[in-house]
């Protein structure tokens, strides 16, 4: 049941027009003007501190938790210090662009054009990075083989560690950092960290004041009591350790907000919330706190997570459509001794999510051989609601995958998920999990064109593709390392670093290698289309010899618009087996290339001495990455999207049902993609009807686990409903669907992505 409080807050949030807020940018810029010549990390810390001190704060009607990033709900915060250009160019189109629209007032436009843009032009992170990118790296980007991310916004994709904070309190952390700073007064990281921590304490105290003032004016006595209680909680957690679930949640949220003010980044993910919060839940229950109150606190927190949306450029919004903010929480799994870690709070979180049904928190569950049947029931019951949440992760392959990356057994068992599906050891990792995408299909296209289809045999085709993978991976690595140094030298994150081991011990920011684990995660994309295309080439050109590869290429070049082209395209689609149908001869081709990509990637190290880790997920990038590839031998037309997800079969090509899909995916070496991979499967709601439907879905998930696939997520909404929502969006304001590793409000997605979701094969029985 949703209370009136929650319903009202939710309605207000979704109703409001999304605005651009330049408040953070203005304060930040003002601070930068005053700190010329100081070390970058100090400038960042001072700017963050000034934002925390000056940003307008608010308590919305009926709120139980304090802390709004912006006064108006779901405002987009501009970060001109990262990339001033795209905003400048898109100021007049932000309100009308196809994806993630924002309103910009005339006043804001003027401020941006006249004050912010001129200050940052030539001095942003983007400039810093662009000046260092080599010709080869730029070319790799221009051919759309390599897509470097995080060149225009702050560094997220990190899970902060909360255990120490929650058990010792913020004051204790401030003391520890101050002691370090006094011991090493020259260490700028400690100085910067202390500045941000002290500013955070003061920021929280501002909320204590505000709530007290509001309480004094409040006429409704019960609301007045709530506000006074909230004021007490804020005052307490600004310094002292929290004792109740309510206090712990409030502190958790303030820390998240401060991290957002610091970097305005995607995916500062909460990790294993059910594990570090359960002691507070248990203590509350022992002390007689009503479960309903704890649920209301949780629902309030989930709403807060939907209030934070990210402002992206028009191009970036194509890749990450519908605000994947990345409040990714993972439930269940194993404890450090390898026992089942599902607890009462895991259930309660799913229950309260069922009440909210919004894109955030992006819930996931970890399953393994010990997962109890009752938990499966709750998971499938939630999946059945159709929002695509929770997504499911498989301990049985992910933990061994981490062991293969020299992570200890205990730490591997503690893994969590950051962003969409990226795998990370919480509180210990700076993983640059989403630093680049690598378009494997484009490599194939470029390779075939280079030799105009003149290869001795099929083995030569594969060898040439591998050679190019090796070449372009090197450029990608070079590019990633440049982006990494950009963040290190220009945009360190000392506040967030305080919550990542071993930054405080080392006295080093995460961006400079302070974390215990230092990965860079790069995604290989296009496995399905690659399998399908190469299988066609193998059969058609080298075994059946119906046509030569050069002849095939000439038809592809004109997008099948030559004579007989349409019949050829039909033949390529229908007469050759496709990935996703459990035919290992096809699946193994993609598996071989993807494994080659993984092995190539893992041979490289980054600037922090950590390893590059391969992954395979697309977010929504299969649409723009597909736009960059011409017609392919699998019958895909020029510019058509790639297979969605990362590991999913090409849309409409999986004809043998959802079990065959899992079998095909299991042919890939899923231990290697230790940065994370993604599989979308769509079911018609009828497949999950009744307990019998739930039981069969549980059987399906358990088979998924045994097949050692890392990830799966579901869309359980009929295509008819989605089409109806396209026709009458106003009636479907609340319809949440799965995009890729995250969920979004359907009507807020652009038509191309909506159509993609509708087209994904729906398994009906």
């Amino acid at each position, binding site marked *: 049941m949703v209370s009136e409080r929650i319903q009202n807050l939710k309605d207000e949030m979704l109703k409001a027009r999304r605005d651009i807020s330049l408040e953070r940018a203005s304060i930040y810029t003002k601070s930068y003007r005053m700190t010329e010549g100081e070390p970058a990390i100090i400038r960042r810390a001072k700017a963050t501190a000034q934002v925390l001190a000056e940003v307008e704060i608010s308590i919305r009607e009926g709120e139980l938790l304090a802390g709004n990033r912006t006064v108006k709900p779901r405002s987009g915060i501009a970060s001109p210090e990262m990339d001033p250009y795209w905003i400048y160019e898109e100021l007049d189109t932000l309100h009308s662009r196809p994806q993630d629209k924002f309103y910009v007032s005339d006043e804001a436009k003027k401020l941006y054009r006249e004050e912010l843009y001129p200050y940052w032009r030539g001095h942003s992170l983007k400039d810093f990075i662009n000046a260092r990118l080599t010709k080869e790296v730029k070319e790799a980007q221009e051919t759309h083989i390599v897509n470097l991310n995080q060149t225009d916004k702050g560094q997220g994709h990190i899970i902060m560690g909360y255990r120490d904070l929650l058990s010792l309190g913020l004051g204790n952390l401030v003391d520890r950092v101050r002691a370090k700073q006094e011991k090493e007064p020259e260490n700028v990281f400690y100085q910067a960290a202390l500045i941000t921590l002290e500013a955070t304490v003061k920021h929280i105290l501002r909320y204590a004041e505000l709530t007290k003032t509001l309480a004094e004016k409040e006429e409704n006595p019960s609301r007045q009591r709530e506000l006074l209680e909230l004021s007490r909680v804020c005052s307490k957690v600004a310094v002292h350790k929290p004792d109740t679930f309510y206090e712990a949640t409030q502190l958790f949220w303030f820390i998240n907000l401060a991290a957002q003010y610091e970097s305005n980044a995607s995916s500062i993910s909460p990790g294993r919330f059910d594990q570090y919060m359960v002691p507070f839940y248990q203590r509350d229950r022992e002390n007689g706190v009503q479960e309903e109150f704890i649920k209301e606190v949780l629902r309030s927190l989930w709403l807060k997570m939907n209030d934070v949306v990210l402002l992206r450029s028009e191009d970036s919004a194509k890749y990450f459509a519908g605000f994947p903010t990345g409040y990714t929480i993972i439930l269940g799994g194993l404890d450090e001794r390898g026992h089942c870690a599902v607890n009462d709070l895991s259930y309660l979180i799913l229950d309260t999510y069922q009440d909210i049904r919004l894109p955030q928190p992006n819930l996931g569950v970890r399953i393994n051989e010990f997962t109890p049947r009752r938990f499966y029931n709750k998971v499938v019951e939630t999946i059945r609601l159709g929002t695509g949440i929770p997504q499911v992760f498989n301990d049985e392959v992910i933990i061994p995958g981490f062991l293969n990356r020299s992570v200890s057994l205990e730490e591997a068992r503690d893994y969590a998920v950051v962003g969409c599906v990226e795998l990370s050891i919480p509180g210990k990792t700076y993983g640059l999990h989403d630093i680049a995408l690598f378009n494997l299909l484009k490599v194939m296209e470029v390779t075939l064109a280079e030799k105009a289809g003149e290869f001795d045999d099929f083995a030569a085709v594969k060898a040439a593709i591998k050679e190019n993978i090796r070449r372009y991976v090197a450029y990608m690595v070079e590019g990633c390392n440049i982006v990494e140094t950009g963040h290190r030298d220009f945009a360190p994150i000392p506040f967030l670093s305080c919550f990542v081991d071993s930054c405080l011990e080392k006295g080093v920011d995460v961006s400079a290698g302070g974390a215990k684990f230092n990965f860079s995660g790069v995604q290989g994309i296009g496995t399905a289309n690659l399998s399908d295309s190469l299988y066609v080439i193998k059969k058609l050109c080298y075994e059946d010899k119906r046509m030569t590869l050069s002849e095939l290429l000439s038809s592809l070049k004109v997008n099948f618009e030559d004579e*007989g082209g*349409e*019949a*050829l395209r*039909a*033949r390529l689609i*229908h*007469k050759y087996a496709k990935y996703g149908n*459990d035919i290992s001869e096809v699946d193994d081709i993609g598996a071989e290339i993807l494994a080659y990509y993984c092995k190539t990637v893992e041979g490289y190290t980054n600037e922090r001495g950590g390893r590059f880790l391969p992954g395979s997920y697309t977010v929504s990038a299969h649409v723009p990455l597909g736009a960059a590839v011409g017609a392919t031998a699998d019958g895909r037309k020029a510019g058509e999207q790639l297979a969605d997800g990362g590991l999913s079969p090409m849309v409409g090509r999986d004809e*043998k*049902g*959802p*079990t*065959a899909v899992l*079998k095909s995916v299991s042919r890939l070496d899923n231990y290697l993609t230790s940065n994370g991979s993604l599989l979308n499967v769509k079911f018609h709601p009828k*497949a999950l009807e009744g307990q*019998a*439907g739930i*039981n*069969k879905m*549980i*059987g*399906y998930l*358990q*088979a998924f686990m*045994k*097949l050692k696939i890392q990830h799966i997520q579901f869309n359980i909404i009929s295509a008819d409903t989605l089409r109806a929502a396209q026709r009458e969006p106003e009636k479907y304001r609340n319809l949440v669907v799965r995009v890729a590793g995250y969920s979004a409000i359907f009507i807020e997605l652009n038509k191309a992505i909506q159509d993609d979701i509708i087209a994904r094969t729906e*398994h009906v*029985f």
Partner: protein
Amino acid sequence: MRALIFNIQRYSIHDGGGIRTIVFFKGCPLHCPWCANPESQSFESEIMKLKSQCIHCNVCAGNAAECPSGALAEQGKWMSVDEVLAEVLKDSVFFNTSGGGVTLSGGEVLSQADFAAELLRQLKELGIHTAIETSGFGRWEALEGLAEYADVILYDLKIMDPEQSKKTLGADSEIILKNLAKLVDKGCRVIPRVPLIPGFTMDEKNITTISDLAQRYGLKEIHLLPFHQYGSSKYESLGRDYALKDLAVPTDEEVNAIKSKLEARGFMVVIGGG
């Protein structure tokens, strides 16, 4: 030994428990007018043409193997036991986790009983749950051979009136009923499946006769299969007339009324099979 198979369908969740793979045998001695799989009737392979898929390229010249779009497709493939086994075992992990298995259906599996019995025997040897779906219209020896290795027998009871059965289905109901009696006698787990076809099987008398029989035999579970029109386009694809193309599907109320009546007599009723 080979059998003519027209489809092996994975992830079926309506024909026996759990996640199942169904092997459809081609050829059936009955000719039920409502048959949703008309390609299952003939004992020979045949060409189906899906008009909607044809791209009018004129490449095929009537040869299904050369049709690029898949509009022309041959129905029916002679397969060995090993071949069928290899295909159905692909989903064994799902059988294990969901309590599923393999169901042999048709057409009429009794018409290719030797092959089916061998397939079932090998499946049981691998510990896989098995079911058959049959009209019961065939030799007892053949059915007995299958019953030996089938954990569940989904047994169609369509039209109980002997004359109507003969006329409409082309089946001697006496054979069907005798076979049923023997299966029950043998202690097999039999689940009657009743297609609900307006104007053919849904009248009170027919349903009562079926439920009386089931009660007499101590059968606990009954599956109801409401008429649908999903198969109608297949008739067109085969170039055949479909007598029931205008017949309306039964309403939920009609189906639920029959369900309630059966439940009142103590049966566990599953709509669509489960």
